[in-house]
């Protein structure tokens, strides 16, 4: 439910700007990771290069969100849900920035892989990508719509992603032993899988922040509680 407007219109504008910057930053981070992985699957170094270049704009948005957040705290001294929104936006932006960094890392590894013949085990990455990126999109959605159930659901999916990463790493390690000539390639794929597992961790953090905004509940560092 959209809360009623503040009497002070500039307060609504400031909160709106903060929210829009979070959305923009998340969109760019998602695009960066998608481009990096497309660059991997389609063996396209240009896409990888674009993913790396995107990172700078995302870094600037992180600084902008912090600056705007401090400004809102200073000018308007928000309380209750407004305070939670501002604090959560400032906590969320480093997580989004790290997702973009993972995109950059994936792009760099993809470029290395593209220099060699393709490995069939690249298929192991696709389901991990789908799961991780769905978690990230849903975590941002849960934050902006203040959807507690969706946020809790995101947090619940992290275990599955961890298992997928472990299984992929085991398979790739086995292949390294079986085919040592392709060792570097398999190692790069292991790292790419780990980057996506880290995307899931950041999405989990964002989901926890979303629960805090919507329900004023801190669910960090707890055994997982399923969504109602």
């Amino acid at each position: 439910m959209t809360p009623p407007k503040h009497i002070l219109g500039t307060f609504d504008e400031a909160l709106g700007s903060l929210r829009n910057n979070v959305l923009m930053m998340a969109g760019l981070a998602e695009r960066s990771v998608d481009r990096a992985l497309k660059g991997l699957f389609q063996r396209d170094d240009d896409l990888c290069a674009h993913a790396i270049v995107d990172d700078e704009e995302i870094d600037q948005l992180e600084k902008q969100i912090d600056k705007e957040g401090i400004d809102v705290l200073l000018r308007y001294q928000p309380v209750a849900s407004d305070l939670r929104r501002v604090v959560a936006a400032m906590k969320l932006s480093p997580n989004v920035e790290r997702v973009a960094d993972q995109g950059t890392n994936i792009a760099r590894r993809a470029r290395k892989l593209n220099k060699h013949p393709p490995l069939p085990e690249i298929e192991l990455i696709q389901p991990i990508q789908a799961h991780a990126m769905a978690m990230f999109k849903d975590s941002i959605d849960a934050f902006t719509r203040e959807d507690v159930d969706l946020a809790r659901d995101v947090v619940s999916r992290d275990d599955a992603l961890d298992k997928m990463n472990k299984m992929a790493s085991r398979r790739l390690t086995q292949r390294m032993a079986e085919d040592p000539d392709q060792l570097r390639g398999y190692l790069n794929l292991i790292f790419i899988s780990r980057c996506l597992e880290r995307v899931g961790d950041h999405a989990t953090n964002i989901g926890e922040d979303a629960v805090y905004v919507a329900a004023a509940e801190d669910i960090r560092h707890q055994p997982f509680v399923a969504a109602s």
Partner: protein
Amino acid sequence: MVSLLDMPQTLTQQVPRQIDRPEDETEREALMIDVRDVDFAYGSNQVLHDVTLEIPARAVTAFIGPSGCGKTTLLRCINRMNDLIEGARITQGAIYLEGVDISAPEVDVVDLRRRVGMVFQKSNPFPKSIYENVSYGLRIAGITKRSQIDEAVEKSLRAAALWDEVKDRLETNAYGLSGGQQQRLCIARALAVEPEVILMDEPCSALDPIATAKIEELIHELKAQYTIVIVTHNMQQAGRVSDYTAFFYLGRLIEFGATTKIFTNPSEKKTEDYITGRFG
């Protein structure tokens, strides 16, 4: 110089700053003022409706709400200042101070107002010396021994964080003090007669930021010994100084709770809308 060996090795070994703000109502102190089902009217105009509220001892409780919500009216009920207004009365319910109905016939209203002191929005020192302002209540209580009065005056001025600023000019007129000093003098005057409760009606609204900060610091020190109820329009002040907050609207108590909860996650939408500036 502190040896590195003396420094805490882990975060868990560091001594945290004492946190004395309750997170929830289960940590509340003993009850000091019990407001039960109170209706109040000025003549035929009812301004308080069915107010029930338990004010804990040795804590700061803030009353907040838009203008005309009844918070000052309720404050003035606690020491029966409203008795001085013709036609103003509690029409239902009662207010108890440590279990005794303050409107009971056997209650001495003068003694009530000694036990429940009050500080007003506009500081109102007597047109007398600083010393005479603080000693006045003691003299009319029958204390005549100079040394006893001297001791009480110094103790009260120290408790009000004013002694160092005025100790060398106690015989000068109180009107020569700044606004913030006058307000602290009024607090000292209230403290001199050894109250149990101090009521404050927007005590800082006429003061500059530094004077306000000094009063807020004083409130923090005083609550170890006194029960304090403060009416304030300044939400940030309520958040800073109070342990509990009561939100009033149109003569009704909407929500009461630990200040931390009220200002981070209030239960009532009206409370949330008011404190976030969505109405009022």
